[in-house]
């Protein structure tokens, strides 16, 4: 009886693992890395919000730590994007109203794989936005020609 139970559980686990791997290797419908159309969907009342911590000197260093803890896994350590998630140093993000970014963070884009971050308290979400928008566009760094030896 115990052997049957162990075999049953093992089969269930293996099946689940294969199923989940398939789900993982075939990512959900993701837009192209440069698709920032979700930013435009932010309601007007969010777009009009300003970052209440924009003048807080601790906001950017605190946001950097939060970014490393929660965002770097998908957006890359330099926020320049990975296969999983777009660059946050794109012009569209850097020049977006902070309220639009706040809306995206708070709501996620769950059908496209971006989790909801409302579990982070609001001040931490604003600190993240302070950090992200302090980075500047990636082109300035990444398109620089390599230094000659």
């Amino acid at each position, binding site marked *: 009886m115990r052997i049957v139970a162990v075999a049953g*559980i093992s089969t*269930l*686990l293996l099946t*689940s*693992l294969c199923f*989940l*791997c398939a*789900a*993982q*290797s075939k990512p*959900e419908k993701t837009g192209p890395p440069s698709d920032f159309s979700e930013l435009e969907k932010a309601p007007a009342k969010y777009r009009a919000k300003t970052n209440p*911590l924009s003048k807080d000197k*601790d906001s950017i*260093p*605190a*946001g950097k*730590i*939060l970014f490393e*803890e*929660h965002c770097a*896994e998908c957006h890359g350590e330099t926020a320049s994007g990975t*296969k*999983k998630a777009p660059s946050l140093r794109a012009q569209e993000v850097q020049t977006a109203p902070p309220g639009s970014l706040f809306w995206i963070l*708070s*709501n*996620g*884009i*769950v*059908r*496209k*794989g*971006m*989790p*909801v971050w*409302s*579990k*982070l*308290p*609001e*001040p*931490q979400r604003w*600190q993240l936005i302070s950090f992200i928008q302090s980075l500047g566009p990636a082109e300035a760094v990444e398109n620089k020609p390599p230094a000659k030896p």
Partner: protein
Amino acid sequence: MYTSLRFLLLALLSLGATQFLRAQENPYMVAYDHNLEEPGSLEVEYFSTFGTQRGGPNFHAFWSEFEYGATAWWTTELYLSGQTTFGDSTVFTGYRWENRVRPLKNEHWINPVLYVEFEDINGADKILKEVEGHDVESDFLTPNAEARRERNRELELKLILSSNYKGWNFTENTLAVKNLSNEPWEFGYALGASRPLTLKGAAQKCNFCLQHFIAGVEMYGGLGDRYSFGLHNTSHYLAPGLAWNLPSGWTFKIEPSFGLNDNSHQFLLRWGVSYEISGFGQKVSQLFKGKNE
């Protein structure tokens, strides 16, 4: 048990799963909020419940959870549970497979999550992961050898309604359980509220910053069954708790629970530890493909 844990740790290490992700876990042990696991992340958890028992020996029930974020809107989880009844024996009590699905795209004032769980457990199960129907303290008096002969295959459905407001989380879970043999639907509830000790993130990396501690309280209990719905002959608990979410990906939780009526255990002490591994799914899929992308 220890061999299994060692095997699991070796398996995880062999996957090269060394990246961490700081969890933001609420201190609830019974109630669920609407925050799901990040896609591709695996959270490995171990929890214990020490329970006092009137008219019989105290017990220590324990369970492991493997919680995986299949997508941003679907989290799936496997539980393995067991218990030691002092002066009696230690037994494996079964497994549970749960799924939580977030049906709405955006965050709302109240956020619903649908919960479906299949349980295959025996009558010796004492983890008290939920309290349902007419569950009462005296159910736990049956000796393990006898209790484990009873097999329960149950389908458990929950509606989780949860809100985040100004750093607070408020959650309300209603529960309906159907034993797949010919038994009536049983009902239960769990309510919770929690808040980090401070809302702003610290400007320096630290383990003991207040932002990493979330304090809360939950209340849970049974609501009878289809034929005798209500509070008669049911048990209820009030449980303050604390979660410590370390930046390294570890989370520790502790929650003393106090029985609120004569049908409840007078005192339960629950604690747990978990570790979140980010990018787990991607690593496993690379392993199956046999190449790095």
